[in-house]
Protein backbone atom coordinates (compact mmCIF):
# COMPACT_ATOMS: atom_id res chain seq x y z
CA UNK A 1 0.00 0.00 0.00
CA UNK A 2 1.24 3.45 -0.90
CA UNK A 3 1.38 5.67 2.13
CA UNK A 4 -0.08 9.17 2.27
CA UNK A 5 2.05 12.32 1.97
CA UNK A 6 3.02 13.86 5.29
CA UNK A 7 4.06 17.33 6.37
CA UNK A 8 6.26 18.02 9.37
CA UNK A 9 6.11 21.23 11.39
CA UNK A 10 8.23 22.40 14.31
CA UNK A 11 6.31 22.56 17.60
CA UNK A 12 8.45 24.32 20.20
CA UNK A 13 11.89 23.24 21.33
CA UNK A 14 11.38 19.51 21.73
CA UNK A 15 8.41 18.49 19.60
CA UNK A 16 7.25 18.19 16.03
CA UNK A 17 3.80 17.85 14.54
CA UNK A 18 3.44 15.34 11.73
CA UNK A 19 0.30 15.85 9.65
CA UNK A 20 -1.46 13.58 7.17
CA UNK A 21 -4.18 14.84 4.78
CA UNK A 22 -6.88 16.64 6.78
CA UNK A 23 -9.62 14.03 6.72
CA UNK A 24 -11.19 11.63 9.18
CA UNK A 25 -10.41 8.33 7.50
CA UNK A 26 -9.62 4.82 8.68
CA UNK A 27 -6.94 4.35 6.02
CA UNK A 28 -5.17 7.55 7.09
CA UNK A 29 -5.33 6.36 10.70
CA UNK A 30 -3.87 2.98 9.63
CA UNK A 31 -1.03 4.83 7.89
CA UNK A 32 -0.30 6.85 11.05
CA UNK A 33 -0.27 3.68 13.16
CA UNK A 34 2.06 2.00 10.63
CA UNK A 35 4.40 4.96 10.87
CA UNK A 36 4.33 4.78 14.69
CA UNK A 37 5.17 1.06 14.59
CA UNK A 38 8.04 1.72 12.19
CA UNK A 39 9.33 4.57 14.38
CA UNK A 40 9.13 2.45 17.54
CA UNK A 41 11.26 -0.16 15.80
CA UNK A 42 14.08 2.38 15.65
CA UNK A 43 14.13 2.03 19.46
CA UNK A 44 15.13 5.61 20.22
CA UNK A 45 14.32 6.16 23.91
CA UNK A 46 12.57 9.34 25.05
CA UNK A 47 10.07 9.87 22.22
CA UNK A 48 6.39 10.14 23.11
CA UNK A 49 3.81 9.99 20.35
CA UNK A 50 0.11 10.78 20.47
CA UNK A 51 -2.39 10.51 17.64
CA UNK A 52 -5.43 12.69 17.04
CA UNK A 53 -7.34 12.00 13.80
CA UNK A 54 -4.87 13.01 11.03
CA UNK A 55 -1.94 14.15 13.13
CA UNK A 56 0.80 12.78 15.29
CA UNK A 57 2.47 14.87 17.98
CA UNK A 58 5.99 13.66 18.69
CA UNK A 59 7.71 14.92 21.83
CA UNK A 60 11.29 14.21 22.82
CA UNK A 61 11.47 14.12 26.62
CA UNK A 62 15.19 14.13 27.00
CA UNK A 63 16.36 17.32 25.38
CA UNK A 64 15.73 20.07 22.85
CA UNK A 65 15.82 18.83 19.28
CA UNK A 66 17.26 19.98 15.98
CA UNK A 67 14.24 20.38 13.70
CA UNK A 68 15.93 19.60 10.36
CA UNK A 69 17.62 16.51 11.76
CA UNK A 70 14.37 15.26 13.30
CA UNK A 71 12.44 15.98 10.13
CA UNK A 72 14.88 13.95 8.04
CA UNK A 73 14.74 11.06 10.50
CA UNK A 74 10.93 11.06 10.29
CA UNK A 75 10.85 11.29 6.49
CA UNK A 76 13.31 8.42 6.19
CA UNK A 77 11.23 6.31 8.57
CA UNK A 78 8.07 7.18 6.63
CA UNK A 79 9.77 6.09 3.37
CA UNK A 80 10.74 2.75 4.82
CA UNK A 81 7.45 2.07 6.56
CA UNK A 82 5.65 0.99 3.39
CA UNK A 83 8.13 -1.85 2.87
CA UNK A 84 8.01 -3.44 6.30
CA UNK A 85 4.49 -3.59 7.64
CA UNK A 86 4.05 -4.98 11.10
CA UNK A 87 0.87 -6.78 12.06
CA UNK A 88 -1.12 -4.88 14.61
CA UNK A 89 -3.71 -6.42 16.88
CA UNK A 90 -6.83 -4.31 17.07
CA UNK A 91 -9.89 -4.98 19.15
CA UNK A 92 -13.60 -4.34 18.97
CA UNK A 93 -14.80 -3.52 22.48
CA UNK A 94 -18.42 -3.85 23.48
CA UNK A 95 -19.10 -1.23 26.12
CA UNK A 96 -22.35 -1.40 28.10
CA UNK A 97 -24.41 1.78 28.39
CA UNK A 98 -27.50 2.34 30.51
CA UNK A 99 -29.73 4.77 28.60
CA UNK A 100 -32.17 5.14 31.52
CA UNK A 101 -33.39 8.70 32.11
CA UNK A 102 -31.61 8.71 35.47
CA UNK A 103 -28.31 8.85 33.54
CA UNK A 104 -29.37 10.07 30.10
CA UNK A 105 -30.88 13.35 31.20
CA UNK A 106 -30.85 14.78 27.67
CA UNK A 107 -32.03 11.69 25.80
CA UNK A 108 -35.70 12.75 25.52
CA UNK A 109 -34.87 16.24 24.29
CA UNK A 110 -32.17 14.91 21.92
CA UNK A 111 -34.65 12.40 20.47
CA UNK A 112 -37.17 15.16 19.81
CA UNK A 113 -34.55 17.35 18.13
CA UNK A 114 -33.42 14.43 15.97
CA UNK A 115 -37.01 13.42 15.13
CA UNK A 116 -36.57 9.94 16.59
CA UNK A 117 -38.15 8.01 19.42
CA UNK A 118 -35.92 7.30 22.42
CA UNK A 119 -35.96 3.64 21.38
CA UNK A 120 -34.83 4.50 17.84
CA UNK A 121 -32.04 6.74 19.15
CA UNK A 122 -30.74 3.89 21.34
CA UNK A 123 -31.04 1.42 18.44
CA UNK A 124 -29.01 3.68 16.15
CA UNK A 125 -26.41 4.52 18.77
CA UNK A 126 -25.81 0.83 19.54
CA UNK A 127 -25.88 -0.46 15.95
CA UNK A 128 -22.65 1.21 14.75
CA UNK A 129 -18.99 0.54 15.35
CA UNK A 130 -16.99 3.64 16.21
CA UNK A 131 -13.29 3.99 15.43
CA UNK A 132 -10.99 5.36 18.16
CA UNK A 133 -9.16 8.20 16.35
CA UNK A 134 -7.32 9.49 19.38
CA UNK A 135 -7.17 9.59 23.17
CA UNK A 136 -6.79 13.00 24.78
CA UNK A 137 -8.53 16.02 26.31
CA UNK A 138 -8.95 14.06 29.58
CA UNK A 139 -7.06 10.90 30.62
CA UNK A 140 -8.84 8.04 28.84
CA UNK A 141 -11.15 10.23 26.71
CA UNK A 142 -11.64 8.61 23.29
CA UNK A 143 -12.24 10.61 20.12
CA UNK A 144 -14.70 8.38 18.26
CA UNK A 145 -15.52 8.61 14.57
CA UNK A 146 -18.31 7.05 12.57
CA UNK A 147 -21.42 8.52 14.16
CA UNK A 148 -24.40 8.19 11.77
CA UNK A 149 -25.55 11.58 10.46
CA UNK A 150 -29.02 10.85 11.88
CA UNK A 151 -27.51 11.31 15.38
CA UNK A 152 -25.71 14.59 14.70
CA UNK A 153 -26.98 17.19 17.14
CA UNK A 154 -25.44 20.52 18.22
CA UNK A 155 -23.80 20.93 21.60
CA UNK A 156 -26.00 22.24 24.39
CA UNK A 157 -26.25 26.03 24.37
CA UNK A 158 -24.89 26.19 27.92
CA UNK A 159 -22.33 23.64 29.10
CA UNK A 160 -22.95 21.89 32.43
CA UNK A 161 -20.48 22.64 35.20
CA UNK A 162 -20.40 18.99 36.13
CA UNK A 163 -21.01 16.00 33.89
CA UNK A 164 -20.85 12.73 35.80
CA UNK A 165 -18.06 10.23 35.16
CA UNK A 166 -19.11 7.59 32.61
CA UNK A 167 -21.61 9.90 30.88
CA UNK A 168 -22.15 9.07 27.22
CA UNK A 169 -22.73 12.11 25.05
CA UNK A 170 -23.55 13.32 21.56
CA UNK A 171 -22.18 16.55 20.04
CA UNK A 172 -22.16 17.31 16.31
CA UNK A 173 -20.21 14.52 14.56
CA UNK A 174 -18.96 13.02 17.80
CA UNK A 175 -20.03 10.58 20.46
CA UNK A 176 -17.97 9.72 23.50
CA UNK A 177 -17.67 8.87 27.17
CA UNK A 178 -16.53 11.26 29.91
CA UNK A 179 -13.88 9.21 31.77
CA UNK A 180 -14.13 11.43 34.86
CA UNK A 181 -16.39 14.13 36.31
CA UNK A 182 -15.86 17.18 34.11
CA UNK A 183 -17.55 20.32 32.86
CA UNK A 184 -19.05 19.64 29.45
CA UNK A 185 -21.49 20.73 26.78
CA UNK A 186 -22.44 17.43 25.19
CA UNK A 187 -26.00 16.05 25.18
CA UNK A 188 -25.94 13.25 27.74
CA UNK A 189 -27.86 10.15 26.66
CA UNK A 190 -26.60 7.46 29.07
CA UNK A 191 -23.82 6.21 31.28
CA UNK A 192 -21.17 3.52 30.90
CA UNK A 193 -20.33 1.74 34.19
CA UNK A 194 -16.83 0.78 33.05
CA UNK A 195 -13.76 2.58 34.32
CA UNK A 196 -11.97 3.81 31.20
CA UNK A 197 -8.94 5.13 33.03
CA UNK A 198 -7.40 3.39 36.03
CA UNK A 199 -3.94 4.70 36.98
CA UNK A 200 -3.41 1.81 39.41
CA UNK A 201 -3.32 -0.66 36.50
CA UNK A 202 -0.17 -1.44 34.52
CA UNK A 203 -2.16 -0.47 31.42
CA UNK A 204 -4.35 2.40 32.72
CA UNK A 205 -6.39 2.65 29.51
CA UNK A 206 -7.32 -0.67 27.91
CA UNK A 207 -8.59 0.87 24.66
CA UNK A 208 -5.97 1.75 22.03
CA UNK A 209 -6.12 4.16 19.11
CA UNK A 210 -7.27 2.16 16.07
CA UNK A 211 -9.59 -0.07 18.14
CA UNK A 212 -13.35 0.04 17.62
CA UNK A 213 -16.13 0.55 20.10
CA UNK A 214 -19.70 -0.67 19.98
CA UNK A 215 -22.22 0.25 22.64
CA UNK A 216 -24.69 -2.21 24.14
CA UNK A 217 -27.86 -1.14 25.93
CA UNK A 218 -28.17 -2.48 29.48
CA UNK A 219 -30.77 -2.19 32.24
CA UNK A 220 -30.32 -0.30 35.50
CA UNK A 221 -29.88 -3.60 37.34
CA UNK A 222 -27.08 -4.68 34.98
CA UNK A 223 -25.52 -1.22 35.30
CA UNK A 224 -25.37 -1.56 39.08
CA UNK A 225 -23.94 -5.07 38.80
CA UNK A 226 -21.17 -3.99 36.38
CA UNK A 227 -20.40 -0.99 38.57
CA UNK A 228 -19.85 -3.24 41.60
CA UNK A 229 -17.91 -5.78 39.54
CA UNK A 230 -15.73 -2.94 38.28
CA UNK A 231 -15.07 -1.63 41.78
CA UNK A 232 -13.87 -5.03 43.01
CA UNK A 233 -11.90 -5.52 39.81
CA UNK A 234 -13.63 -8.59 38.38
CA UNK A 235 -15.35 -7.00 35.38
CA UNK A 236 -13.66 -7.27 32.00
CA UNK A 237 -15.34 -5.62 29.03
CA UNK A 238 -16.10 -7.92 26.12
CA UNK A 239 -13.65 -7.78 23.23
CA UNK A 240 -12.96 -9.51 19.94
CA UNK A 241 -9.81 -9.31 17.85
CA UNK A 242 -10.63 -7.43 14.63
CA UNK A 243 -7.75 -8.45 12.41
CA UNK A 244 -7.16 -12.05 13.51
Amino acid at each position, binding site marked *: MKSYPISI*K*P*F*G*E*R*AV*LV*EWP*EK*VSESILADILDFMDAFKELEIPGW*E*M*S*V*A*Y*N*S*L*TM*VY*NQDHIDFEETKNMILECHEKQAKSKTERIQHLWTLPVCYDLEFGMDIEEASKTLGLSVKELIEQHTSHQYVVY*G*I*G*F*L*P*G*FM*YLGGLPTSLEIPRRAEPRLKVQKGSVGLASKQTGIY*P*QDSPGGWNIIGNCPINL*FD*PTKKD*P*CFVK*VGDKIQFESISKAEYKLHKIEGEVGIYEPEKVVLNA
Partner: protein
Amino acid sequence: MLKVLKPGLYSTIQDLGRFGHRDIGVPISGAMDVESVKKANMLLENDENAAVIEITMTGPTLLFDTTSYICLSGAHIVATLNNQPIDNYTVLKVEKGDILSYGRLETGFRGYLAIKGGFQSKKVLDSHSLFFPVTKSARLKDGDEIPYKETLSYEPKISEIKIEEHFEKNTLKVYKGPEFSLLSDGQLMEIFAKPYTVSKENNRMAYQLSELITGHSHSMLTSGTLPGTVQLTPAGRMIILMKDGQTTGGYPRILQLSEESISVLAQKKYGDELKFKLV
Protein backbone atom coordinates in the same frame (compact mmCIF):
# COMPACT_ATOMS: atom_id res chain seq x y z
CA MET B 1 7.26 13.23 57.65
CA LEU B 2 6.30 16.78 56.80
CA LYS B 3 2.93 17.48 58.35
CA VAL B 4 0.60 19.98 56.70
CA LEU B 5 -0.87 22.17 59.46
CA LYS B 6 -2.45 24.60 56.98
CA PRO B 7 -2.45 23.90 53.23
CA GLY B 8 -2.27 27.46 51.84
CA LEU B 9 -4.18 28.51 48.71
CA TYR B 10 -3.03 25.79 46.34
CA SER B 11 -0.04 23.72 47.40
CA THR B 12 0.98 20.61 45.49
CA ILE B 13 3.82 18.10 45.25
CA GLN B 14 5.67 18.33 41.92
CA ASP B 15 8.67 16.89 40.18
CA LEU B 16 9.56 17.63 36.55
CA GLY B 17 6.49 15.76 35.34
CA ARG B 18 4.78 12.62 34.21
CA PHE B 19 6.33 11.56 30.94
CA GLY B 20 5.37 8.74 28.61
CA HIS B 21 1.59 8.81 29.06
CA ARG B 22 0.35 11.55 26.73
CA ASP B 23 -0.89 8.84 24.34
CA ILE B 24 -3.67 8.07 26.85
CA GLY B 25 -4.46 11.72 27.53
CA VAL B 26 -2.41 12.23 30.69
CA PRO B 27 -1.00 15.77 30.98
CA ILE B 28 2.70 16.20 31.77
CA SER B 29 2.09 18.13 35.01
CA GLY B 30 5.26 18.89 36.98
CA ALA B 31 6.52 22.16 38.46
CA MET B 32 5.21 25.26 36.66
CA ASP B 33 8.47 27.16 37.15
CA VAL B 34 11.10 24.55 36.34
CA GLU B 35 13.94 27.12 36.46
CA SER B 36 13.34 27.87 40.15
CA VAL B 37 12.98 24.19 41.05
CA LYS B 38 16.22 23.20 39.33
CA LYS B 39 18.15 25.85 41.26
CA ALA B 40 16.78 24.74 44.65
CA ASN B 41 17.52 21.09 43.88
CA MET B 42 20.98 22.05 42.68
CA LEU B 43 21.82 23.76 45.99
CA LEU B 44 20.70 20.63 47.85
CA GLU B 45 22.68 18.50 45.37
CA ASN B 46 19.49 16.59 44.57
CA ASP B 47 18.52 14.90 41.33
CA GLU B 48 16.91 17.65 39.23
CA ASN B 49 13.72 15.56 39.18
CA ALA B 50 13.53 15.41 43.02
CA ALA B 51 10.01 16.20 44.25
CA VAL B 52 9.33 19.62 45.79
CA ILE B 53 6.29 21.42 47.16
CA GLU B 54 4.82 24.08 44.89
CA ILE B 55 3.17 26.94 46.73
CA THR B 56 0.74 29.34 45.08
CA MET B 57 0.45 32.91 46.36
CA THR B 58 -0.53 32.04 49.95
CA GLY B 59 1.82 29.58 51.55
CA PRO B 60 1.11 26.64 53.86
CA THR B 61 2.17 26.04 57.48
CA LEU B 62 4.33 22.93 57.72
CA LEU B 63 5.75 20.89 60.62
CA PHE B 64 8.96 18.86 60.28
CA ASP B 65 9.45 15.71 62.38
CA THR B 66 12.90 14.59 61.19
CA THR B 67 16.25 16.32 60.68
CA SER B 68 16.99 17.38 57.12
CA TYR B 69 17.97 20.35 54.95
CA ILE B 70 15.65 22.58 52.94
CA CYS B 71 15.90 25.31 50.35
CA LEU B 72 13.18 27.76 49.23
CA SER B 73 13.00 29.18 45.72
CA GLY B 74 10.71 30.88 43.21
CA ALA B 75 8.37 33.69 44.22
CA HIS B 76 9.33 35.92 47.11
CA ILE B 77 6.85 35.02 49.78
CA VAL B 78 7.79 36.14 53.30
CA ALA B 79 8.76 32.89 55.07
CA THR B 80 9.76 32.06 58.62
CA LEU B 81 11.25 29.01 60.28
CA ASN B 82 10.18 29.00 63.94
CA ASN B 83 9.29 32.67 63.51
CA GLN B 84 12.76 33.61 62.21
CA PRO B 85 12.71 35.10 58.70
CA ILE B 86 14.45 32.97 56.06
CA ASP B 87 15.57 33.70 52.50
CA ASN B 88 15.20 31.96 49.16
CA TYR B 89 18.17 30.05 47.73
CA THR B 90 19.74 29.37 51.12
CA VAL B 91 20.31 25.85 52.45
CA LEU B 92 18.89 25.57 55.98
CA LYS B 93 18.83 22.77 58.53
CA VAL B 94 15.43 21.73 59.94
CA GLU B 95 14.87 19.59 63.02
CA LYS B 96 11.99 17.78 64.66
CA GLY B 97 9.32 20.25 65.76
CA ASP B 98 10.40 23.05 63.42
CA ILE B 99 7.56 24.98 61.80
CA LEU B 100 7.81 26.65 58.40
CA SER B 101 5.18 29.28 57.74
CA TYR B 102 4.56 31.81 55.04
CA GLY B 103 3.28 35.36 55.00
CA ARG B 104 2.86 38.05 52.38
CA LEU B 105 3.58 37.52 48.68
CA GLU B 106 6.09 40.11 47.48
CA THR B 107 7.02 39.24 43.91
CA GLY B 108 6.20 36.34 41.59
CA PHE B 109 3.34 33.92 42.17
CA ARG B 110 4.69 30.41 42.86
CA GLY B 111 7.22 29.46 45.51
CA TYR B 112 8.99 26.16 46.04
CA LEU B 113 10.15 24.14 49.03
CA ALA B 114 12.84 21.61 48.21
CA ILE B 115 14.27 19.12 50.71
CA LYS B 116 17.47 17.06 50.78
CA GLY B 117 16.77 13.87 48.79
CA GLY B 118 13.37 15.10 47.59
CA PHE B 119 9.92 14.36 49.03
CA GLN B 120 9.21 10.62 49.00
CA SER B 121 5.47 10.63 48.28
CA LYS B 122 4.08 7.72 46.29
CA LYS B 123 4.68 7.87 42.55
CA VAL B 124 1.74 7.32 40.22
CA LEU B 125 2.58 6.62 36.56
CA ASP B 126 6.26 7.35 37.24
CA SER B 127 5.81 10.78 38.84
CA HIS B 128 5.22 12.39 42.24
CA SER B 129 3.27 15.27 40.66
CA LEU B 130 -0.26 15.68 41.97
CA PHE B 131 -2.90 15.72 39.25
CA PHE B 132 -6.46 14.54 39.88
CA PRO B 133 -7.70 11.93 38.94
CA VAL B 134 -4.33 10.36 38.10
CA THR B 135 -3.46 10.91 41.76
CA LYS B 136 -6.15 10.63 44.44
CA SER B 137 -5.91 14.28 45.42
CA ALA B 138 -5.31 17.45 43.45
CA ARG B 139 -3.47 19.34 46.20
CA LEU B 140 -2.32 19.22 49.82
CA LYS B 141 -4.87 19.44 52.59
CA ASP B 142 -4.87 19.77 56.41
CA GLY B 143 -3.24 16.84 58.12
CA ASP B 144 -1.48 15.39 55.05
CA GLU B 145 1.89 13.82 55.85
CA ILE B 146 4.59 13.79 53.20
CA PRO B 147 7.53 11.46 53.78
CA TYR B 148 11.15 12.58 53.44
CA LYS B 149 14.48 11.05 54.38
CA GLU B 150 16.49 11.91 57.48
CA THR B 151 19.75 13.76 56.78
CA LEU B 152 21.66 14.43 59.98
CA SER B 153 24.46 16.44 58.45
CA TYR B 154 25.13 17.93 55.05
CA GLU B 155 27.88 20.27 53.93
CA PRO B 156 26.60 21.96 50.78
CA LYS B 157 29.24 22.90 48.20
CA ILE B 158 27.39 26.19 47.81
CA SER B 159 25.09 27.21 50.66
CA GLU B 160 23.47 30.25 49.08
CA ILE B 161 23.34 31.96 45.72
CA LYS B 162 22.19 35.29 44.44
CA ILE B 163 19.77 34.82 41.60
CA GLU B 164 18.82 37.13 38.81
CA GLU B 165 15.09 36.49 38.97
CA HIS B 166 13.70 35.35 35.65
CA PHE B 167 10.21 36.19 36.86
CA GLU B 168 10.91 39.86 36.83
CA LYS B 169 10.90 39.59 33.06
CA ASN B 170 7.65 40.25 31.24
CA THR B 171 8.53 39.23 27.68
CA LEU B 172 7.49 35.76 26.56
CA LYS B 173 9.68 34.30 23.84
CA VAL B 174 7.55 32.41 21.38
CA TYR B 175 8.01 30.22 18.34
CA LYS B 176 5.53 29.94 15.47
CA GLY B 177 2.82 27.43 16.35
CA PRO B 178 1.48 24.85 13.86
CA GLU B 179 -1.35 27.21 12.75
CA PHE B 180 0.73 30.42 12.80
CA SER B 181 0.16 30.86 9.06
CA LEU B 182 -3.58 31.42 9.66
CA LEU B 183 -2.83 34.74 11.31
CA SER B 184 -3.53 37.84 9.22
CA ASP B 185 -1.14 40.79 9.13
CA GLY B 186 -3.62 42.62 11.33
CA GLN B 187 -3.67 39.85 13.91
CA LEU B 188 0.13 39.67 13.90
CA MET B 189 0.30 43.41 14.57
CA GLU B 190 -2.13 43.05 17.44
CA ILE B 191 -0.24 40.14 19.00
CA PHE B 192 3.26 41.55 18.80
CA ALA B 193 2.69 45.29 19.12
CA LYS B 194 0.56 45.37 22.26
CA PRO B 195 0.98 44.24 25.85
CA TYR B 196 -1.49 41.73 27.33
CA THR B 197 -2.66 41.14 30.87
CA VAL B 198 -3.24 37.88 32.72
CA SER B 199 -6.97 37.33 33.33
CA LYS B 200 -8.60 35.83 36.42
CA GLU B 201 -8.76 32.55 34.52
CA ASN B 202 -5.26 31.39 35.31
CA ASN B 203 -4.22 28.14 36.93
CA ARG B 204 -1.99 25.10 36.43
CA MET B 205 -4.01 24.09 33.37
CA ALA B 206 -4.03 27.33 31.42
CA TYR B 207 -3.60 31.10 31.49
CA GLN B 208 -6.21 33.10 29.59
CA LEU B 209 -5.30 36.64 28.56
CA SER B 210 -7.74 39.48 29.22
CA GLU B 211 -7.56 41.35 25.91
CA LEU B 212 -9.15 39.87 22.81
CA ILE B 213 -7.62 40.09 19.35
CA THR B 214 -9.54 39.79 16.07
CA GLY B 215 -11.20 36.39 16.00
CA HIS B 216 -11.39 33.76 13.28
CA SER B 217 -13.76 31.18 11.85
CA HIS B 218 -11.22 28.46 11.14
CA SER B 219 -12.34 25.00 12.18
CA MET B 220 -9.81 22.21 12.47
CA LEU B 221 -9.60 18.61 13.55
CA THR B 222 -8.55 18.10 17.16
CA SER B 223 -4.77 17.81 17.40
CA GLY B 224 -1.98 17.64 19.98
CA THR B 225 -1.18 20.43 22.43
CA LEU B 226 1.78 20.99 24.77
CA PRO B 227 2.53 23.11 27.81
CA GLY B 228 3.19 26.57 26.37
CA THR B 229 0.85 26.18 23.38
CA VAL B 230 -1.04 29.44 22.71
CA GLN B 231 -4.51 28.67 21.37
CA LEU B 232 -6.73 31.25 19.69
CA THR B 233 -10.47 30.86 20.17
CA PRO B 234 -12.93 31.99 17.45
CA ALA B 235 -13.81 34.95 19.69
CA GLY B 236 -10.17 36.07 19.62
CA ARG B 237 -9.15 34.98 23.11
CA MET B 238 -5.61 33.70 23.60
CA ILE B 239 -5.34 30.72 25.95
CA ILE B 240 -1.86 29.59 26.97
CA LEU B 241 -1.81 25.96 28.08
CA MET B 242 0.34 25.18 31.10
CA LYS B 243 1.67 22.05 32.81
CA ASP B 244 -1.67 20.42 33.69
CA GLY B 245 -3.10 21.40 30.29
CA GLN B 246 -5.04 18.96 28.16
CA THR B 247 -3.02 16.89 25.67
CA THR B 248 -5.25 17.72 22.69
CA GLY B 249 -7.33 20.67 21.59
CA GLY B 250 -9.40 21.95 18.72
CA TYR B 251 -8.39 25.63 18.58
CA PRO B 252 -5.63 26.87 16.25
CA ARG B 253 -2.22 26.72 17.93
CA ILE B 254 -0.82 30.05 16.87
CA LEU B 255 2.29 30.27 19.06
CA GLN B 256 4.45 28.07 21.24
CA LEU B 257 6.24 29.48 24.29
CA SER B 258 9.90 28.67 24.85
CA GLU B 259 10.37 26.49 27.92
CA GLU B 260 12.11 29.32 29.72
CA SER B 261 9.07 31.52 29.06
CA ILE B 262 6.76 28.92 30.63
CA SER B 263 8.73 29.48 33.85
CA VAL B 264 8.38 33.25 33.39
CA LEU B 265 4.60 33.00 32.89
CA ALA B 266 4.26 30.63 35.87
CA GLN B 267 5.27 33.58 38.09
CA LYS B 268 2.54 35.88 36.68
CA LYS B 269 -0.78 36.47 38.38
CA TYR B 270 -4.07 38.22 37.64
CA GLY B 271 -3.45 41.69 36.21
CA ASP B 272 0.24 41.21 35.40
CA GLU B 273 1.34 42.52 32.03
CA LEU B 274 3.29 40.64 29.39
CA LYS B 275 4.46 40.90 25.80
CA PHE B 276 5.20 38.37 23.08
CA LYS B 277 8.45 38.27 21.15
CA LEU B 278 8.95 35.96 18.20
CA VAL B 279 12.30 34.15 18.18
